[in-house]
């Protein structure tokens, strides 16, 4: 009969045996780019360079924010080398919190757009609202769906609107939108599914989600939001104290190469003919105001 001490030694040894981390010559990337788009690109990088890529993808329900918070939580113990984000705001947020390497600026490439998505069996293009403020009209009561504006590109869109419109006008609009029974769901792809099923006539989503929905045969169409819309650029952040910074640079260079951007465009993850110049958004001030904006959004959409 073994003693307690012996049993615990066996237990700890067993844990140690299975617990060894597998670092080696591998670059670790956290990416909020949709897994179906990111995975083939990372695999191609592995094949071309022989460098293994260990990726963490995020979930649609907590789009981008889940990974950003994981990076913040791991700040003292960085596991990640490179953050590949399919939008810009959260990368600037990480930079402001010193999670990113100070000596490296945030790099951006490619773009998607915020779009109206509508069910073609229920709405015509001519019937689309002329701008976002029209969504608070009774005409659209209970007929509009958006992703919860605390995550992903919808959160960024709302925060950019706050900067452009001013706090009061923005807060009034958010409240009016909620009062007009806007439906909030987990992620932009769910917006597309609901519109495609005809449960809601109109939605706000991203251009890549519209393309994915159309590819799946949903009866939907999309159009960029002309006024108050914006371009969502992919961004790359280098993690401060990353275990393998050199490999991170190689991967970042690869991700911004023309063949990769072309393949993202062909897959539908980026818009064709995206603007080269970054959008005119003062990210530092958006980041600075983030906490207050989130508090407002939570009180309006969650409570």
């Amino acid at each position, binding site marked *: 009969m073994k003693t307690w001490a012996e049993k615990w030694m066996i237990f700890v040894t067993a844990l140690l045996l299975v617990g060894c*981390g597998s670092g080696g010559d591998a670059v670790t990337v956290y990416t909020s780019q949709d897994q179906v788009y990111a995975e083939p690109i990372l695999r191609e990088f592995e094949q071309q360079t022989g460098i*293994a890529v260990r990726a*963490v993808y995020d979930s649609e*329900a907590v789009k981008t924010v889940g990974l950003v*918070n994981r990076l913040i*939580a791991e700040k003292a113990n960085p596991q990640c080398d490179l953050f590949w984000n399919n939008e810009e705001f959260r990368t600037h947020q990480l930079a402001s919190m010193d999670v990113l390497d100070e000596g490296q600026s945030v790099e951006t490439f490619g773009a998607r757009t915020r779009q109206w998505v509508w069910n073609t069996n229920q709405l015509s293009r001519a019937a689309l609202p002329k701008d976002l403020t029209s969504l608070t009209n009774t005409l659209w009561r209970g007929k509009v769906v958006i992703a919860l504006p605390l995550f992903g590109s919808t959160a960024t869109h709302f925060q950019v609107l706050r900067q452009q419109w001013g706090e009061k006008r923005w807060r009034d609009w958010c409240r009016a939108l909620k009062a007009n029974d806007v439906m909030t769901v*987990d992620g932009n792809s769910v917006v597309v599914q609901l519109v495609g099923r005809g449960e809601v006539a109109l939605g706000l989503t991203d251009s890549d989600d519209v393309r994915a929905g159309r590819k799946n045969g949903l009866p939907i169409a999309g159009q960029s939001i002309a006024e108050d819309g914006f371009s969502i650029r992919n961004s790359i952040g280098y993690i401060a104290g990353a275990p393998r910074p050199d490999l991170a640079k190689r991967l970042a260079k690869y991700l911004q190469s023309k063949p990769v951007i072309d393949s993202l465009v062909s897959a539908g993850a980026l818009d064709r003919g995206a603007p080269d110049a970054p959008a005119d958004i003062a990210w530092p001030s958006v980041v600075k105001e983030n906490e207050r904006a989130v508090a407002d959004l939570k009180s309006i959409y969650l409570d």
Partner: protein
Amino acid sequence: MSWELLLNSFGLATMVSFFAVLIGWSVAVFLASTAGRWRIVLLGGSIAAFSLPPFLVVNTWLGLLGNVGVLKPVLPVDVYSFGGAVWLLTLMLWPVPCLMSYGALKRLTPELLDAEPGLGGWPLIKEVLLPLSGSALLQSGVIVFALAFNNIAVPAILQVNVFPAQFWVEFSSTYNFKMAWQYGWVLALMPLGVLLVLRGQEIAWPWESQGVPAEQFADRLGQALRRIGAGVAVLAVVISFLLPLGHLLVDARTWSDFPDAIRAGARSIWNSLWFAAGTSVLVVGLGALFSDQKGGRLAWLLFFLPGVLLGVVLISVFNRPWLGWFYGGSGVVFAALGLRYFALGWEGMRLAKRSVDADLQHISDLSGVPWWQRWLHLFLPQAGWAMAAVWYVVYLLCLWDTETVVLIVPPGGETLALRVFNLLHYGHHAQVNALCLILLLLAVLPLIAGAVVAAFVKRRAR
């Protein structure tokens, strides 16, 4: 904390428990009144229904009643709803009350039945069968309640807001441990309640008793009730097992996407196999090591604790610079899955050890036989099958697990179950069927390997 969401979760789990117990008990009664091939087929079907990957069931019903589902034109039911979540979770969990009630019903002896010779039909159910299986119904109902309450994958995919899913979203979007503990105590109440209800109660295992001969039981039950039981049993097995399996195998996309799914998910396949097989070895080994410690029963607390809460605890413990080698590697996944399923190993190995001949054990103790020789010559020949069964159950649960690992999965450590969960959530369904088939193949892999080894050993023995 959202009390509305908490009530929603309670409502969901209560309804799932009610329907699962109702279906499971009806099937169990029919099983007890049936002999021969039918019993084997339906019993096997019940076990197989419980062993199916949850995503296979979800994906099947999305294919049937989803936005472009094949049954949608004739059956305009919305599967993306509270009712849809109740339906799917019931289909997955009814085998638990079925198998537990079956064990209880097998305790009915011919003598007990003969004591009331005139009792048959509904009075037999009311006076004898329900009281006999009451404890098993309560136990299984509580277990189903806890499993349904803790499930985040099914409600999340169906867009049904439940408390544990909201807990996961809130924690992921803040990494706020203070908030996590505020929510967590409610989630921890669940396993505590389960343990209190099950405290001191004995579980009736189906193999422990012979029961009443099926013909005698059927005769007393009456034709009408037997027919109802038969209908429920056949429908339950067909809908919860054959339908998902058939949908998977018949769908052309399963086969056309299969090579791509293997290519794209090669690492996930390996991760799933490695984590599931490794954890089950760990759990069985540690279960054997600690099976004589009574405190092991407390491990059930971890089994019934929502997996996401366990993930939060592990992050707070292991996310430290000097533990980076463990937290950033597969160790944290083994620790999470091992802790979650340790109770099964402990309980299983306790039962397995109990089934070993006591006299032989006593003799080997007295003669000072080394522990490894006792294992090789005494324990393995007598309880090897029970040990293999425990290993397999833990292996399956690890294979399907998403809740425990969703927060802590290390870079490059994505499992097949997580992959399917994410793809379903995104709405990219193209490879899900093929991935479910791969999951199913991984599930039967140990059975095939076992059969090959058994055949080889048998051949050599000749």
